[in-house]
């Protein structure tokens, strides 16, 4: 930058006025362009790896696409979308995804908030607890799913062994369409709680202590302190967690792929797994479903920002 500025300064000093205006104009042009030049590398990446794939996805969704022989691809307009909205299994997958998302988000938020309040105070025991609770998050979801798959085996699994030992009726867990989705939710919550609890602990610890001291002086009860001080002051983090988790849950795939394969009888078939299952046979249909999923997530995020951002208390 430095040598360039130096030459420009030299040009400014030149006595000829015509030349000078030209330099000024050139400088203005450069100043106008500079921000774009600066972000060009990042934008090139985004265009190549985000924009182009999205546009291509939308393009594919209008075709009965033949991956191997493009000459055999057929433009079919909105037929793929028409199929999506007339097929029962799409609504089933959508319903499962919604149920899964609500289940995971509500349970994870509630449990991690409880844990965060519980271990919010600094201390040796709390640090150890926090480490323990956080551990599931750093294990690969594949290992987690496999281990739970065995725990949940109806005849040989540990969970049913415990249930029977306690004199409770055993469950079919993943093998019955009534309990399968709940079982998958359970595993996701178990894996996610530690991470979100960590975010909330950090949030709670960032609340200025004089606020709590003042409340204590005023003889405020614990619940009152929680709802009037803690909750509003960590609302930005809660809001962030809510959005991240909703989007993440809508895209759930790995647990379903490993634990149930979408079954039994589509009981755990979620949108992304639904898209995946059409990968070899109908790329166009899978793309159209991908576009629908994108629209749903965009809509949800927009809705959250509209409705909830007013309730968020930014310091």
């Amino acid at each position, binding site marked *: 930058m430095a040598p360039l500025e130096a030459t420009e300064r030299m040009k400014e000093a030149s006595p000829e006025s015509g030349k000078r205006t030209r330099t000024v104009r050139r400088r203005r042009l450069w100043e106008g362009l500079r921000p774009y030049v600066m972000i060009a590398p990042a934008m090139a990446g985004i265009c190549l790896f985000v924009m182009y794939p999205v546009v291509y996805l939308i393009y594919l969704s209008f075709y009965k696409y033949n991956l191997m*022989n493009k000459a055999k691809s057929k433009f079919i307009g909105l037929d793929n979308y028409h199929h999506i909205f007339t097929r029962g299994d799409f609504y089933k997958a959508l319903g499962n995804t919604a149920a899964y998302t609500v289940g995971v988000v509500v349970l994870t938020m509630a449990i991690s908030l409880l844990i965060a309040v519980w271990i919010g105070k600094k201390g*040796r025991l709390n640090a150890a607890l926090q480490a323990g609770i956080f551990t599931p998050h750093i*294990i690969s979801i594949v290992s987690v799913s*496999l281990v739970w798959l065995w725990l949940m085996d109806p005849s040989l699994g540990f969970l049913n062994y415990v249930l029977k030992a306690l004199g409770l009726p055993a469950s079919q867990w993943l093998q019955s369409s009534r309990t399968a989705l709940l079982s998958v939710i359970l595993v996701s919550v178990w894996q996610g709680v530690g991470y979100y609890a960590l975010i909330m602990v950090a949030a709670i610890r960032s609340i200025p202590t004089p606020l709590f001291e003042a409340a204590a002086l005023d003889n405020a009860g614990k619940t009152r302190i929680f709802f009037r001080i803690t909750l509003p002051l960590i609302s930005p983090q809660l809001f962030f967690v809510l959005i991240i988790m909703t989007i993440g849950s809508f895209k759930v795939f790995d647990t379903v792929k490993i634990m149930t*394969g979408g*079954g039994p009888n589509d009981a755990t078939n979620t949108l992304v797994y639904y898209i995946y299952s059409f990968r070899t046979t109908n790329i166009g249909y899978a793309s159209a479903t991908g576009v629908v999923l994108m629209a749903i997530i965009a809509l949800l995020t927009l809705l959250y920002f509209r409705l909830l951002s007013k309730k968020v208390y930014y310091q």
Partner: protein
Amino acid sequence: MVKRTISLAMTATLLAGLLAACSGNGGGSNAGNANAEGSSAPTASGSASGGGKTTVQFWHSVGGKNGEYLDALIKRFNASHDDIQVVGTFQGSYDETVTKLQQAVSAGTAPDVSMLERAYVELFADSDVLEDLTPYLEKSKMSADDFNAGLMGHSVFNDKLVSLPFNRSTPILHVNKTLLSEKGLSVPKTWEELKQTANAMVVKTNGEYSRYGLTMPYDTWYPIALISQADGKFFNDEHTSLGFIDNGIGDKVFQYLKDLQKTGALYYPPAQDSGNIVNQMFVEGKVAMMFQSTGTIGSLSGTVGFDYTTAFLPQDKKYASPTGGANVAMLAGSKHKDAAWEFLRYLMEDPDGGLQFILDSGYLPFTKKMAESQQMQDLWAKEPNRKVAYDQLQYAIDTNKDVAWPEIMHEFFSAIEAIMYDSKDIQSTLGTFKKETERILAE
């Protein structure tokens, strides 16, 4: 500071313990595949060194022990051919290979020869990416009649010979004869006998089944076998709809299965990993009979501790069984077609090629010459269970051949799950399935 060090140490110990536990568990189940993948790697490096050699890329889907047998075959081929180097690459399961092949074809990086699960052959042939092998066959003085007719069902597409059988199998009845003999029962030959025998084998203790009569993996293969036995066809002759719904055969087949399931005579396994689950149950004597691929005969006869025998799938109106396994095909985009054909010819004809692989692995001999060979006759004399599988081939029939089959299979699985897992009404479930099939076929 001290506090932080302590908590850090604790975290680390916790993590280490958990990670160790997980990696130990995860590793065991994948060991077979990992081996196969590793063993094919060294061959790849050899291709660069041979100056005038033509390199033929070959993708396949057999891992584990069979993968080693196939690698040995490739090594034998390379040793006997100075001018051709075949590079075999294990690409995962049949489905994974298909997905990768689709992408590779569209990217122009497809191999010269690939293994293709037989039901996917039409999908590729329809996209015109498979080479017609008829002229090559003629050049080598071979003909389609050299092959076992029952295994050629997926080879011809629009009058073109687009693939040849290689590692093929059929479903067969596996029997724990020790258990049957305890009750003085013989191996069932008809649906009726199967029902009685399976029910007689059921043991119930404390309200739970501790032994079942019959089981089968979660697959479309077995319902299709039953449909053919009841004299039905999967697709109708015009390929516009299903051929087993309107004539009531679908109802009959699934009602038969549900009746068995109700009394514990049939254990229908969960979809995930069903093949291993039923094999395990059979080995442990928790089920007396099993519909399962011929490909398991080798490993079962090595592990079971009882009198183990195989038999034809029981008949209803007739004996019938679909076929499975994979074919080999040459990709039309190959640049070394003559070299690729030489490899295919070696697989089909040479005693060191296909025949040795079949003898090693236990897949079905696919040419008449192979079946008549002395080595095969000797093996059958020693292991009659394998001969039963070959003899059943005379009843082999595949009625689910269509370009749209992979897509329709997806719908069929949905119907099977609805009926077998959730006891949904058979008639209405099959009705929905038929409607979806007609829509797909009409496209």
